[in-house]
C-alpha cells in the first residue's frame, strides 16, 4: 500500500481544505490592513483614512460569512475527522475573531473622527502608537503561526498580549491624571479611552487566534487557560 499522508484520497477534499485556509489568510491580511490604517489614522489625524477603514468594514463582514459557509459545506460533505476536523473548527473560530478585530478597527476609526474634530494632536499619542504597533505584530504573528503550524510562534503572541494589557493599564492611569488635572480634557480623554480599549481588545482576539493554532496542532483546547498552562500544553506536545 502506497502512503502519502499529506494528501487525501479525494483531491476535492484537499482543495476544499486548502481553500478555507487561504480565504482565512486573505481575510487576515485585510483585517491586519484595517487595523494598521486605523492606527495610522489616529496617530496622524488622517480623517480620510479613518473614513476608508469604516467603509471597508463591510468587506471583512462578508469574508466571515463566506468562509463560515465554506466550513459548513466541508462539515456536511466530508464529515472531517482528527486534524481535518480541527482545521475546520479552528478556521471557523479564527474568522470570528478576525471579524471582531475588524469591528474594533472601525471603532478606532470612528473615535478618530471625533478626536480630530477637536484638535490635531491628542493626549496619550505615544501609548496609542506603541500599543497599536504591538497588536498589529500580534495579528500577523498569530496568522503566521497558523500557516506554519508553529506552537512557539503562537505562544509568543500570548506573551505579547500580557505586555499589551499592562501597557493599557498604565495608559489608563496616565489618562486619569490628565482628567484630574484639567477637566476640559475629559471629552477627548474618554475618546482616547475607547480607542485604547479597542486596541487592547484586538490583542485579546489575536491571542484567541493563537490559541486556535495550539488546538489545531496539538488538539489541546487552551481557551481560558493561563500562559503557564498553555506553555505546559505545548511542552507535552514535544
Amino acid at each position, binding site marked *: *500500500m*502506497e*502512503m*502519502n*499522508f*499529506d*494528501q*487525501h*484520497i*479525494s483531491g476535492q*477534499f484537499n482543495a476544499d481544505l486548502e481553500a478555507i485556509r487561504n480565504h482565512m489568510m486573505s481575510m487576515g491580511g485585510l483585517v491586519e490592513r484595517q487595523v494598521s490604517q486605523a492606527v495610522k489614522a489616529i496617530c496622524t489625524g488622517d480623517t480620510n483614512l479613518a473614513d476608508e477603514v469604516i467603509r471597508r468594514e463591510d468587506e471583512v463582514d462578508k469574508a466571515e460569512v463566506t468562509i463560515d459557509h465554506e466550513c459548513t459545506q466541508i462539515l456536511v460533505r466530508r*464529515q*472531517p*475527522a*482528527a*486534524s*481535518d*476536523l*480541527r482545521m475546520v473548527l479552528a478556521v471557523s473560530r479564527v474568522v470570528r475573531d478576525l471579524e471582531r478585530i475588524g469591528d474594533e478597527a472601525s471603532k478606532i476609526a470612528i473615535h478618530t473622527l471625533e478626536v480630530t474634530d477637536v484638535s490635531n494632536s491628542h493626549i496619550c499619542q505615544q501609548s496609542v502608537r506603541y500599543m497599536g504597533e504591538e497588536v498589529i505584530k500580534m495579528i500577523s504573528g498569530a496568522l503566521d503561526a497558523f500557516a506554519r503550524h508553529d506552537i512557539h510562534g503562537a505562544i509568543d503572541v500570548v506573551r505579547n498580549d500580557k505586555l499589551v494589557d499592562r501597557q493599557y493599564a498604565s495608559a489608563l492611569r496616565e489618562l486619569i491624571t490628565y482628567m484630574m488635572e484639567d477637566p476640559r480634557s475629559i471629552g477627548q480623554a474618554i475618546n482616547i479611552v475607547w480607542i485604547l480599549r479597542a486596541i487592547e481588545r484586538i490583542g485579546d482576539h489575536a491571542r484567541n487566534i493563537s490559541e486556535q493554532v495550539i488546538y489545531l496542532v*496539538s*488538539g489541546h483546547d487552551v481557551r481560558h487557560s493561563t500562559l503557564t498552562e498553555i506553555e505546559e500544553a505545548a511542552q507535552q506536545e514535544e
Partner: protein
Amino acid sequence: MSIIENHETVGTPFCSNPKLSARDVGVFYGDKQAIFDVSLDIGSNEVIALIGPSGCGKSTFLRSLNRMNDTIDICRVTGEILLDGENIYDPKVDVVPLRATVGMVFQKPNPFPKSIYDNISYGPRIHGLASSRVDLDEIVERSLQRAGLWTEVKDRLHSPGTGLSGGQQQRLCIARTIAVEPEVILMDEPCSALDPIATAKIEELIDELRENYTIAIVTHSMQQAARVSQRTAYFHLGQLIEVNNTDMVFTTPEHQLTEAYITGRFG
C-alpha cells in the same frame, strides 16, 4: 511480513474490568500470518469498534473471539483469549456453549428459512434453555422486545423470517443471538447492507444492548464507529496500531497511521 516492525499498540488497549482479554494473539491461514501479536481488553458493558482498511485483520480478529475461525481448516490461532479469565482456546472448552455466550451477528442478515418464531426459539431449544412452550413463548417475546422488533412482528410470528425487510431481518438475527442469553455480542459490519433508517435503528439498539452485554463491532463506517462505541481500535496490516477512547481517536488520534486512515489519506 508486516511493514511495521516491532510495533507496540499505542493508547489504552487494557482496561480495569475486562470481559474478554486477548494476549499476544496471532492468527495464521496456513503459512500466511493475518494477525500479529494483538493484545486487547474488551471491557464489560462497553461497545468497542474495530476499524481499519480492508484486509487489516479486524474481522479475522473478531472471529477469533468466539472461535469462528475453527471452522476454517487451515486457520490457526496462537496466544490467549480469555473470557472472564478462562482461555477459550483451552482444549476442554466446548465451542457450542462458547458461541452462545459470545454470539455473533453478520454483515448480511441470515435468518433461517423458518418462521420468525422458530428463528428465535431454535437456539434456546437446542441449548435447553426452555422447558415448556410457555417458557419458549416468553423467550421469543423478550428477545424480540430487546431487539426492538416485537411491535412490528407480534401479529405475524409464524410468517417466514425471510419475508421481513433487511433491517428487520438484521434485528431478527440480533434477537436470535440474544435469545440464547449471551454475554458478549460480536458484530461484523452489521449495517453495511442496510439503509440509513434501518442503520439508525440498529445503532440505537446497540446503545440499549450495552446495558446488558459487551459488544465488539467491526465497521467500515467511521461515523458509525464514532456514534456507537466508547473505545475504538485501529488495525493495520494485521497489527493493532492504536486503541483509545472514541472521542479521542476521532479528534486527536495518537498514531500517524490512525490519523491517516480516519482522515482519508491512504493513497
